[in-house]
């Protein structure tokens, strides 16, 4: 079992990962590894493959070549492996993707009850705890549409956390939010980053990256062009393309 690997070996290992959409090659050989507890921020222009890459980590996209190993489990076409990996990874999307027909509480408890087979009471307790943690207690009976964007995204974070994942993937979690709501979501993410959770975050929030990232990956045209600690990367990018990109986003 995976017990042997626990505590050592990388949490996520990607070797020469390639991905095509028809004739378009979105990933052109991505190799990197993420340590346990590491916080990795991915930046890059749109269409650079950064979103495709994190979606291959929990197999929302199937990679066409190379190897991806998550917590010692290699992602292959074997459904059992995919299920095991997915249950260890929580994911937060740009557009929240909450289930609109379920209450906030049911959004959070659905997966623990059906995938982890927790009894109702335990799942609800966990949900209440998590809602408290993301700063919106006592909203469990509301429907997602009754909450603000920032609140919805925090529910989405709580929903992902309810599965007690070892890894959290964030795909531009604040890009769809009104400016005044970005902070409340970033605060929750900061708190997570400071725990021993492994985080892979696609974001353009440079402040967040500088504050908590252990490492920044810069994606462009389907490959990692440059990587390094945030202080170094943001103040002193080495690659021509990184410089151009930073010039554009830092106005």
């Amino acid at each position, binding site marked *: 079992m995976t017990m042997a690997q626990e505590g050592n070996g990388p949490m996520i290992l990607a070797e020469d990962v390639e991905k095509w959409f028809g004739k378009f090659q979105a990933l052109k050989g991505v190799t990197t590894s993420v340590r346990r507890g590491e916080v990795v921020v991915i930046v890059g222009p749109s269409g650079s493959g950064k979103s495709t890459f994190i979606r291959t980590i*929990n*197999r*929302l996209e199937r990679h066409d070549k190379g190897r991806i190993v998550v917590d010692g489990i290699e992602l292959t076409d074997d459904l059992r492996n995919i*299920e095991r990996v*997915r*249950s260890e*990874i*929580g*994911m937060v*999307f740009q*557009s929240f*993707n*909450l*289930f*609109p*027909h379920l209450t906030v509480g049911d959004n959070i408890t*659905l*997966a623990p009850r*059906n*995938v982890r087979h927790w009894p109702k009471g335990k799942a609800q307790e966990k949900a209440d705890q998590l809602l408290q943690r993301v700063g919106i207690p006592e909203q469990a009976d509301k*429907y997602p*549409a*009754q909450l603000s964007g920032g609140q919805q995204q925090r529910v989405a974070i709580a*929903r*992902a956390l309810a*599965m007690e994942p070892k890894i959290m993937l964030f795909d531009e979690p604040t890009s769809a939010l009104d400016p005044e709501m970005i902070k409340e979501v970033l605060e929750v993410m900061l708190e997570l980053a400071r725990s021993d959770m492994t985080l892979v975050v696609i974001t353009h929030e440079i402040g967040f990256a500088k504050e908590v990232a252990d490492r920044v990956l810069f994606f462009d045209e389907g490959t990692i062009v440059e990587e390094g600690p945030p202080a170094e990367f943001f103040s002193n990018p080495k690659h021509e393309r990184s410089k151009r990109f930073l010039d554009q986003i830092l106005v």
Partner: protein
Amino acid sequence: MKRPASEEGYELTLGEPEGPAAQVAPEAVPATPGEWVRKNLFSSFWSGMLTVVTALLAAWILAKAIGFVFVDADWSVLKANLRVYMVGRFPLEEMWRVWTDVYVIALLAGLSRGVQPAMPWTLRRVVRWALILGVAVAVLLYLVESSRVLIMLAAAVALMVAGAAIGRRLGRVLRKPLIFAWILAFPFVVILLRGFGGVKPENWGGFLLNVIVAVVAIFVSFPIGLLLALGRRSTLPVVRTFSVGFIEFIRGVPLVTLLIFGVFAFELLLPPGLRLPNIVLAMIMFVVFSSAYVAEIVRGGLQGVPEGQYEASRALGLRYPRMMRSIVLPQALRNTIPSMISHFISLFKDTSLLVGVGLFSDLLSNAGRATRDLAFVGLEAEALLPAAFMFWAVAYAMARWSQRVEKRVGVGER
């Protein structure tokens, strides 16, 4: 066109009030009857003309209709054939089976209504119900000669009212059991007619036959259509090809053709030795026909569910059946309620196409036969209009019910 500041113009500016933000919206001033008439019926020359012409036309039609119903018409054909209209050749001594079915449905319908939040008894609603009940009672007293039948009908109504009262009292607790009760009621109703030394399907007839065929077609085609819709989106080529082929073939063939094929030729496809009653063959064809349409309606609903819902479900580790059951289908099906019920209303009316096969004693066939009786020569209108009215009444009730369901499931959830 001359048009004083109309309501439409007002609505357009609603989003951006011109006055200070804190101001409360001005309360609508109730219009006097005179104002209302001027504004809604005679706002311009042409609208006035239209009002007058329409009113004259409506009055003429109404006068004609009333004249026909109360003066000209000879309802003897309906009175003599009422039983045939309702149940065809269903034997009199087995009628208790039909009545029991009616009672089961009446009770369940009452309970279901009672569980829903009560609607306030506005004056309008009281008047509407008084009218409906008044007309119904008058018509029944005029048409039905057997006092036993009247008592049985009254009992059904009483049962429905009692069910509503019980439902209101028990409330939400009943909701889930009621769903199961309805699902169980479907086979029960059919088995009670046929089983335990009951009546062969060959002898089912009249409106009863139309209702049973429609109910069977609706209940059986819904799950099949659902599977076909999922099959159409399957990644397995065999499943997908079969689903697409089935749906497109059936949708392209007229229902009457299917029915005639089903009754006269379908036997060739069955294993030798297996003989099914004609009406069962017809039911199979209705199910086949309806499944294809249900599948397309469900497919439309599935397309309305955003990709993000699938991704979120997968990311959480939900497996396909659970994802479909808990996330995708509830959202997809809710969007299909209006078109689904409209399809079921059509299907119910399409049961009149049994006439086309020529072997059945459904409502329309029986109404047609009634006019061929020498005693009722020339009474086609009197024979056929009631049949049309019965179809209309049920279809309209379904449409009203659909509106209520739509309103209820849409509340605060999106």
